[in-house]
């Protein structure tokens, strides 16, 4: 059974940040305002009926979700944006006017345990983690240095999921060993806060930060960057997932980062499966 929650958005907290233009490689948006691109096999090649069949819009599926991709984004070392789905898919929609939006993410194959986050703004198409303009764990002379895009101006005390990344002292991930991080960032995807990526064409128009709005998951919320979190439920059963209703969402572009929160660790049963899931959205008006 879906876990359904409604959030009334505090409009004063919604900020418009950078929006992208030209691009090069990697992030691939699935457009929920467009007709669905039907996905007719599982990742392993077995035929599967796409739940989006027959719909005119508001529904896009993928067969490439990982079981851990979204969960990694809740850790202090964040997640690799490639591993929400291994095709680096994100979902997007555009609102012409302030609207009430309902988003659902449902597993069509067992084992995924869906969860998702919603952000205002778009990443540059084909952006990816760790670009010279927006590096993941930057160094100079063999030692860590501050991120040119994600550092907060001092003085500042970094917190987990605060919308910034301390790549100078790694205070939120375990500090330094010598002058290098004990636990470097794994990626730039933050499930509970705003985050940024660039593409190979940067700078500067091909970099953007998307602003955290809301999330729904069974994983406990540890964010420190505003927004609203809804407690979901763990389930790996086919047909289950999470649903979120956002009331008073301002006009603009939005990004959905959807993935699994089923497991973590290095076991193949966690890292290797690529599973089928479907994201849907409706809006009023």
């Amino acid at each position, binding site marked *: 059974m879906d876990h359904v929650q409604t959030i009334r958005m505090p409009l004063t907290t919604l900020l418009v940040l950078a929006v992208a233009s030209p691009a090069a490689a990697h992030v691939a948006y699935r457009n929920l305002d467009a007709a669905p691109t039907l996905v007719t096999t599982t990742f392993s090649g077995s035929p599967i009926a796409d739940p989006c069949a027959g719909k005119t819009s508001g529904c896009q599926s993928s067969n490439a979700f990982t079981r851990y991709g979204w969960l990694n984004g809740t850790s202090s070392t964040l997640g690799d944006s490639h591993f929400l789905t*291994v095709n680096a898919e994100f979902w997007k929609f555009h609102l012409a006017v302030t609207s009430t939006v309902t988003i659902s993410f449902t597993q069509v194959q067992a084992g995924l345990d869906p969860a998702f986050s919603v952000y205002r703004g778009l990443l540059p198409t084909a952006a990816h983690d760790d*670009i010279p303009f927006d590096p993941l764990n930057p160094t100079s002379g063999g030692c860590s240095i501050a991120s040119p895009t994600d550092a907060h101006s001092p003085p500042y005390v970094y917190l987990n999921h605060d919308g910034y990344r301390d790549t100078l002292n790694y205070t939120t991930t375990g500090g330094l060993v010598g002058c290098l991080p004990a636990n470097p960032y794994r990626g730039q995807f933050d499930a509970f806060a705003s985050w940024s990526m660039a593409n190979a064409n940067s700078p500067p128009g091909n970099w953007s930060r998307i602003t955290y709005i809301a999330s729904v998951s069974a994983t406990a919320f540890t964010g420190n960057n505003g927004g609203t979190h809804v407690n979901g439920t763990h389930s790996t059963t086919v047909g289950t997932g999470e649903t979120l209703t956002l009331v008073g969402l301002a006009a603009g572009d939005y990004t959905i980062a959807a993935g699994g929160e089923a497991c973590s660790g290095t076991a193949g049963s966690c890292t290797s499966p690529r599973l089928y899931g479907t994201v849907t959205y409706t809006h009023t008006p």
Partner: protein
Amino acid sequence: MKRTYVTLTAALASWGIMAPRQAEAHVCNILLSNPPITSVCGDPDNPDETASYTPQVRPDGTVFIEDPAFTGYGWSGGTNAVLGDSHELDGGNFFVFELKRLSGVIIGFANDSAANATPLDTAFSLYAGWLPNEAHDDTAFDPLNPVDDVTFLPVASPTDTAPFPHHRYTVLDRWRDTLHYTQTGGLDANGDPIHPFVGQFNALNDWSMATPDAVPGQPADGNWATIHYLAHRNSLGAGGTERLIALLPAGKYTIAAGGANCDDFAPASSCQLGPFYSGVVSLKVY
């Protein structure tokens, strides 16, 4: 300077090369041509959101392009049993050229000393064929570490399993044993690979990738290709300019260029933590 030509004609004779086609995400084939032609990569569904690369030409006709996104470990990753992530070479950029006739070529990959605080240990591999634009490791058609949909236990790769019985898999084989992982350390007590493949980039042998548009069980239709290893260079150490001089038949070729400064993949190793390096890939055709 003594020039040693590597004649690769015979090795190429029997290979069919698949033509690339624009698809959805990741590999960007940057064409080295004289006169220069701009290569455009990106999402065809978003034509305004593309990247373009235009090489330059020196007075002697050498075509070259500088890129700032090489890692110090991207190429060396492809020399390991678990292979390398193709993203880590140069952010997914590969350098390609096409010969209309049998030609002598000099391929170079130089450290950009003006841009790099520490020198890049340049390395590259040359392959016959092109990968499809926007291909990447781990697609449904050509999965990295495939598993059964229900048990999540390893299964044979649909593309990289040896096509003949009793093949004895070896490290850096052209084929990948994703059923028993004999090349990377085998399976643990739960049946999971002890060391799954990191990527599909093989610096020393043939390898393949697909785009997300290639549908399992259907013809790849240009969205999957194998490129065929011809030679590699990495002998001069950091700061050197690696060169390959070869006589090549007409056809399409790919250069996979990256760093070999280090090969330590421990999570906090300085190898993995950067910096990015700038390098210059060049091609002279005679």
